[in-house]
């Protein structure tokens, strides 16, 4: 498989603090790749090195085949970036931001106008495009930044916490937008996030990063499957008896009770639900409800780091 971003043992040290500690990343072309981790895990530092904003202390990184230290100009030409913090000029209009970006990135004059129209359609700014950015809402500013990052048709789009600080509604519209983008334009997206849901919804592959190191990387589905920890929640009329008997079952790894609910930790719960219901019937226990839950990325993170992702906020 072709990798559009590749890093090898990349390290960034600030004085005696190591922000990124030997990361090896392989991002397949045309994918949406997520770097997931808590605040301070080194996500922005990693992305800054890939965007040529920071020089790695050691190791190397290639973006679109170019070394980020030796060929920064070629790397810059290949990428679009949406920074975590806003990078807009209040006193320019949306359209002017796009025009400025297009000429800085050498978009040929004859296609510039049509590209700007195309992007304005895509980010749906409407009439607001002619107004100063200071009148924009948070979501509009974000859309403008994403649109700007695309105007020179980059091979890779970096999104550093694209929905940080946005309300849930705007967040979902940005997600939708990123999905569309990846489908319709031939662009690889590398995004950082500390929202589990975001990584789960958008990314083909996720690398979990903690304290400057990548702990594991795979598709969200595989990561969750690896946990082998589905939860079956069951409500029965004779909980004591059920607990007593269910404990003896071979496939039950753990069992505990919270009020009226009994939770069974099992592997591959899909196959076990009917078995458990049959088992209860057999004992003359009436089952009120059964619920099956797959683990989420939060559980994955918990398993690998021993803490929750929001723990460090």
């Amino acid at each position, binding site marked *: 498989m072709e990798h559009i971003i590749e890093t090898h043992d990349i390290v960034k040290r600030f004085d005696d603090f190591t922000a990124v500690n030997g990361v090896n990343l392989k991002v397949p072309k045309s994918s949406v790749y997520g770097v997931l981790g808590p605040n301070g895990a080194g996500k922005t530092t990693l992305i800054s090195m890939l965007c040529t904003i920071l020089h790695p202390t050691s190791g190397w990184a290639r973006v679109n085949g170019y070394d980020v230290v030796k060929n920064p100009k070629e790397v810059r030409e290949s990428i679009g970036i949406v920074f975590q913090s806003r990078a807009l000029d209040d006193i320019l209009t949306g359209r002017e931001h796009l025009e*400025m970006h297009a*000429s*800085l990135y050498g978009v040929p004059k004859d296609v510039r106008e049509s590209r700007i129209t195309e992007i304005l359609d895509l980010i749906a700014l409407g009439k607001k495009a002619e107004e100063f950015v200071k009148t924009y809402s948070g979501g509009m500013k974000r859309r403008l930044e994403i649109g700007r990052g695309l105007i020179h048709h980059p091979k890779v789009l970096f999104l550093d916490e694209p929905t940080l600080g946005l309300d849930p509604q705007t967040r979902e519209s940005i997600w939708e937008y990123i999905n569309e983008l990846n489908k319709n334009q031939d662009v690889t997206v590398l995004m950082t996030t500390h929202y589990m849901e975001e990584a789960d919804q958008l990314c083909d592959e996720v690398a979990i990063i903690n304290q400057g190191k990548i702990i594991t990387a795979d598709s969200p589905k595989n990561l969750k499957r690896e946990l082998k920890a589905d939860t079956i929640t069951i409500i029965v009329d004779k909980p004591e008896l059920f607990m007593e008997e269910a404990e003896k079952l071979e496939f039950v790894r753990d069992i505990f009770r919270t009020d009226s609910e009994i939770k069974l930790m099992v592997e591959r719960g899909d196959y076990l639900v009917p078995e458990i219901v049959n088992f209860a019937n057999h004992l003359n226990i009436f089952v009120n409800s059964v619920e099956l839950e797959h683990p989420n990325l939060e559980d994955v993170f918990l398993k690998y780091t021993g803490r929750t992702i929001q723990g460090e906020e």
Partner: protein
Amino acid sequence: MAELEGIYTIWLRENKRFLRYRSRILTSVVTPLLWLLIFGTGLGSAIRFGNTPGGYQAFIFPGIICQTILFTSVFSGLSVIQDRQFGFLKEIMVAPISRPSIVLGKAIGISTTALVQGVVLLLLSFVVNVKMDIAILLASIVVIIIISLGLSGMGLLIASFTDSMEGFNLIMSFIVMPIFLLSGALFPVTGLPTWLQAAVYLDPLTYGVDALRAIILHSSVLPLYLDLAVIASFAVAMVLISALIFSKKEQSLM
């Protein structure tokens, strides 16, 4: 070609910013007029000033033009600090254009806005009874461009070493005001105590004021070619050094 385009783009933004802050345009004309009309008339009445036809007001006219250029150029250069705080500098710095082009685009852009203000003042010369014609106007424009390039280069250089606008007062007290006061904008630079004389000649703006005086009032302390040589060298040096610093420090500027 791409570099030229980049320089033009940055130049354009600088000018748009200038034109959109209406209050800045207004103050840039009103402040020098206050100096000329109030300070010039006031001090002019108190002292006998026979060296220049038109008196003290006419004498400080070139100096006040230089003051306007100084403030505009240095403060516009410092706007890079704000760009950095608002994150916009990142957008420019990760663009695939060379750092010297960024500095040059900025410097030329700032110089253009300073020139606009300078020309407005030159056209208002009748207020202080100074004769103006096309030749004087054109020659003054050349001098203004050279001075403002140098000073905006200096502003950019200071900005690259300053993290926040908190340093603004320091820059004002220790750099901008001494440059203004020592330039001889408000007093003749001949017959001064030695220590002051030395300081005056260390100030690059002294040569700018002297050059404008030579052109507008036909009287100067130093020959015009010498003034021009000094301000041109200063301009080249400042732009080159800040281009170099922007390239070297690029990582910490983003």
